[in-house]
């Protein structure tokens, strides 16, 4: 998977993009968030309150129970503030 981070999620984690092989046992967005939290450091900081993080899979907004596959582009970011 390509995993993208934007705004303060990016700055807390320290990178805007990385490639992650779908980890064993991770089936959906909620599972990936738990897996990323277990990496600790900036990841734990960025996902300390997952309710503050929005998720898109293949550039569409999704809920935490959205299933994942290795070909997906997954993005994590704060609520948007454009306009």
């Amino acid at each position, binding site marked *: 998977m390509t995993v993208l981070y934007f705004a303060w999620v990016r700055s807390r984690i320290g990178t805007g993009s990385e490639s992650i092989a779908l980890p064993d046992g991770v089936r959906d967005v909620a599972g990936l968030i738990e897996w990323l939290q277990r990496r600790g450091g900036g990841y734990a900081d960025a996902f300390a309150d997952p309710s503050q993080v929005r998720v898109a899979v293949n550039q569409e907004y999704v809920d935490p129970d959205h299933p994942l596959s290795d070909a997906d582009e997954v993005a994590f970011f*704060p609520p948007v503030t*454009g306009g």
Partner: protein
Amino acid sequence: MIRVQRDDFDLGAELDALACGNHRVGGLASFVGLVRDMAGDGPVTAMTLEHYPGMTERQLAAIEAEAHRRWPLEASLIIHRFGRLEPGDRVVLVACASAHRQAALAACHFLIDWLKTRAPFWKHEEAPDGGGDWVRAREVDDRAAAAWDRNEG
């Protein structure tokens, strides 16, 4: 039409082009968002807009299509800038052309309300002391967008 760009735009030229040659257009409404020099916590010297290339265009196109579904529009335009902007700079233009003013004005209002809660842009503000922080999403914006979910226009 959707444009996501770093550069400024010519307001007059963009509005002229939207209705140019289409004499079914009787009303042209627009909204222009500008960078303010004050935020909730104090003065702002500049802001940087980050976005998600690809998803931004997809979301703006979906929002624009929804406006065309709800109102009889002859043309519409969304321009949103990214990168570093200073107070007074234009951030966003939303414009709608229709036979009558009601549809043009309502669609314009709808587009900016929906854009603010769905288009993946994030503002980072710079303060005079060199500090900076990410702008927090506002509940009032969520409520404004949600009102359009309940009200089909």
